[in-house]
């Protein structure tokens, strides 16, 4: 099943690149546009991802599991949500950067509700993004958005986290320890 899935993925990726190259050779406008979109976003991500993964690597070797467990784990109180929102505020890029970070946090012993709060908050609370938003939409817009969404994110994360913990859900990525 897994092998077959991988095969489909690889075929899809290869076909896509053949399509893009063929489009440039035959001057097929839509294909060229799609190829251009791909390049723009690939460059954008390559600027962020290597740094993000190096920081994740450093986090994994330096930060002790007990530390994360104490502040973000099952025994931690409401402050854990504060810390993790602060962490999310400094996240750059977007959700796609937050996923591997969240995964590492979980592996270090953070509880599920904290993980989901982190994911939600790294969507809505990124500080550089919010400053940018306020300059285009006005400060009132940003403040209302944050005041409404943060409590909802925490509340829904606690519900979802508790629900999954009751079901003994564990995050386990393929091919990782």
């Amino acid at each position: 099943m897994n092998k077959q899935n991988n095969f489909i993925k690889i075929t899809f990726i290869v076909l896509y690149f053949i399509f893009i190259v063929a489009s440039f050779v035959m001057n097929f406008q839509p294909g060229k546009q799609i190829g251009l979109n791909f390049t723009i976003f690939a460059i954008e991500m390559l600027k962020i991802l290597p740094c993000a993964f190096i920081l994740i690597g450093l986090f994994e070797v330096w930060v002790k599991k007990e530390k994360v467990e104490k502040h973000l784990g099952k025994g931690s109180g409401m402050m854990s949500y504060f810390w993790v929102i602060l962490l999310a505020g400094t996240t750059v890029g977007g959700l796609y950067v937050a996923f591997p970070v969240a995964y590492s946090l979980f592996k270090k012993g953070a509880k599920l509700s904290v993980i989901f709060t982190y994911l939600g908050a790294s969507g809505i609370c990124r500080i550089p993004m919010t400053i940018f938003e306020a300059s285009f939409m006005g400060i009132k817009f940003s403040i209302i958005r944050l005041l409404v969404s943060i409590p909802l994110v925490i509340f829904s994360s606690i519900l979802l986290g508790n629900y999954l913990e009751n079901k003994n859900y564990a995050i386990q990525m393929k091919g990782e320890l």
Partner: protein
Amino acid sequence: MFYYLLSITICALIISFIFDKNKTIMALKIAYKKFMNILPAFLIMLILVSIVLFLVPDKMIVNYLGTKNSFFSVTLASIFGSITLMPGFIAYPLCGILLKKGVSYMVLAAFTTTLMMVGVLSYPVEKEYFGAKVTIIRNLISFIISIIVAIAIGFFFGELI
């Protein structure tokens, strides 16, 4: 933004290296392995983004969000926001333009919040880490939160009657 991240990463690496050479090398190995592990999923996400952005260009978003029926526009805005993926430095200037064109704050809140919280296109990546079921639940919850945020914005800006 890029230089800020790059300088933090380099500083962290240097400090780490001074304290413990072996640990730093191990960190780099972990980084490399993790990156390679998720790379295929990222490639698929990029491919989907490139196709969807071609099918749903900025112009189309501008044309459709300005309609009078606010229920319709909010729904459409949140769908656009969910299925597209764009960085803030593209999204907010676009919203600034839309605002000048008379699109309501409520509609723009629906668009930007779903854009930041709901990721249909990043599904391949999210699924690798958290599994299909949790990914779907998380995105549904995020979608609902976005709608509530949009309604709240509409209320405070006096756009709801």
